[in-house]
């Protein structure tokens, strides 16, 4: 192809694409982490250990699932949550078990937090009949309706209005529950978000809308796809808002608890930006030229799991071997899950026609 022509007019902001003026855009700036201790936050030592176990489970589950994917054990997309585990964990501990949660396709961590076993999760990735969605959904559609985890969704922004619907139902039924919706920075650019924020504020819905801003929408840095500070979107809707350090479990827990209490008490929505970082590529085939290795390492240095571990050890809340025991237990749980998934049967062919309608013998056009 011919040499590049000089162009004056530009539309999209430039990142790495311009060899002269371009540069890798920084993902996110983290706000300060909370300096509260677990006692200040009302967290018991048992809870801390449970949180550690939960985060470690998410991490190892995904590291193992990646291996299995690379071995060719299953196909489709695989979007890993690694690096963002403090958000799912902090939030599920801050909310009541009766509160609703919904998220996008980066959903494994959320599923594990809300009662999907490592076995059922891994089997879902493998497309097996024993999977949490019986092999029908795969990686992007973990769900556990019993535990009010309403699923992962694959159309960017598509699930945001649905969360308003959960809040509507909770207000309608006056059951005191609230609903929380999680989506990426990329979803902020969808019209669905803006229609929903207006509705939620107008109708005083008990809902939390959370952007997990991990700095990138696929290969596009946040500054290249969206204007201004994401959290400031709330202002236009007169909505309460917050920015949270998503690399720190305590920060997520503290703020999400405050917010949940406020939503429950006043039946008013919140718009929250939690800043975080995904360690892996967008899905499994991403050369990641849009960011630097140094940037990635910067975040890995403040890894949320390591941070909690350090806290536990430094404050003598747990001994090294106690944590090791938890890690070993999780490791075994995940290995068992892989074996379980591998050995589980595929769904029977007739299941293709199941779950389309509520009737036992519905009409299908042929």
């Amino acid at each position: 192809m011919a040499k590049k022509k000089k162009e004056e007019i530009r539309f999209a902001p430039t990142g790495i694409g311009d060899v002269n003026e371009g540069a890798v855009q920084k993902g996110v700036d983290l706000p300060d982490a909370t300096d509260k201790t677990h006692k200040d936050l009302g967290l018991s030592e048992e809870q801390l250990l449970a949180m550690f176990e939960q985060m470690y489970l998410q991490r190892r589950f995904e590291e193992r699932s990646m291996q299995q994917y690379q071995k060719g054990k299953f196909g489709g997309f695989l979007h890993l949550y690694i690096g963002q585990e403090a958000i799912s964990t902090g939030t599920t501990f801050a909310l009541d078990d009766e509160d609703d949660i919904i998220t996008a396709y980066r959903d494994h961590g959320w599923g594990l937090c809300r009662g999907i076993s490592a076995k059922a999760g891994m089997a879902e990735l493998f497309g097996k009949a024993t999977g949490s969605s019986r092999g029908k959904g795969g990686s992007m559609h973990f769900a556990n309706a019993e535990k009010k985890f309403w699923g992962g969704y694959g159309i960017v922004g598509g699930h945001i209005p649905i969360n308003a619907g959960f809040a509507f139902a909770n207000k309608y039924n006056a059951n005191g529950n609230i609903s929380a919706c999680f989506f990426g920075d990329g979803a902020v650019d969808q019209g669905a978000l803006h229609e929903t924020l207006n509705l939620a504020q107008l109708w005083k819905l008990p809902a939390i809308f959370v952007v997990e801003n991990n700095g990138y929408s696929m290969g596009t840095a946040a500054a290249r796809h969206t204007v201004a500070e994401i959290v400031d979107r709330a202002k236009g809707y007169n909505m309460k808002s917050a920015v949270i350090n998503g690399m720190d479990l305590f920060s997520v827990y503290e703020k999400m608890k405050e917010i949940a209490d406020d939503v429950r008490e006043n039946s008013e929505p919140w718009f929250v930006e939690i800043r975080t970082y995904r360690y892996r590529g967008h899905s499994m085939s991403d050369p990641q030229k849009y960011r630097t290795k140094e940037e990635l390492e910067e975040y890995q240095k403040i890894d949320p799991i390591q941070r909690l571990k350090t806290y536990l050890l430094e404050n003598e809340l747990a001994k090294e071997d106690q944590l090791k025991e938890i890690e070993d237990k999780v490791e075994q749980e995940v290995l068992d899950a892989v074996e379980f998934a591998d050995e589980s049967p595929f769904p029977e062919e007739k299941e293709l026609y199941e779950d389309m309608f509520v009737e036992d013998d519905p009409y299908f056009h042929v």
Partner: protein
Amino acid sequence: MAELQFREALKHAIDEEMDRDERVFIMGEEVAEYNGAYKVTEGLLDKYGFKRVIDTPISELGFAGLGVGAAMRGLRPIVEFMTFNFAVLAADQIINHATKVKYMTGGQIDCPIVFRGPNASAGQLGATHSVSYDSMYAHFPGLKVIYPSEPGDAKGLLKSAIRDDNPVIFMESEQMYGMKGEVSDAEDFIIPIGKGKIKREGSDVTVVAHGKMYHVAVQAANQLAKDGIECEIIDPRTVKPLDLPLIIESIKKTNRCVLVDEAHPFGGLAAEIGFLIQREAFDYLDAPVQRVCLPDVNAPFSKKLFDAWFPSPKQVIDAVNQVTYRT
């Protein structure tokens, strides 16, 4: 003739048309700096710069509509959707605006725009990423719909689409981007919209298949040939306008027809062609027309269910056996 990948053929078409006409520009998610989610636009940013190769936010409704407006004001946008499964969000702009503005204004305003990207399933991506939309768009007056099966057709038809003064839907497939094929290197190689092609001659049965299904039909035909059954495969290439005369001519010769369509059965292209055949060639048929489609069921994730869901050469063979009374 040059041997090119599907994605390269598309890129050459876009490149040649951008080179030829300053008004042509391309936008979509990851088309510029990332060089395209499926590398169709690779190198175009370097060549044409940031003004004409533009990354968009994930705002399908917004950028499709922006494209419509730019087209109404004389530019010639190529709007890339990462897949047509996401173009559902832009349906209002395509269906309510692009297709209707000329008519509503009594012919005052043209809307020369191409909406392109992969259509239908790309393997185990689950229910929301696997729908075939060509028949749906063909339903609406005011749209031309193209879904080619081979690199050569893709290049010639995409160039026509970009030059067309109407809104055009141009569909591809993630699973075909790497597929190689002969592409004419005649200068300004163009294939007119609305012209199908007989891609395999045969006297026993007419098989109509386009897009990804063309390749399923070819596999079936190769298998059947070993059994002495010769399929005539017609690739309509363009869904709308449909090259009906080509199909009817073939049926007059073979007297039998199987339609292969990667859509659900209700109201799909197979349904439409089936109706047209009975209207135009009723007296020539020796057997009822059969079709091979997706079942009336969402795409499952599980490999086992997916394989049962997706139209297979085996199903085409069964249908051919049925219309030739070999079963």
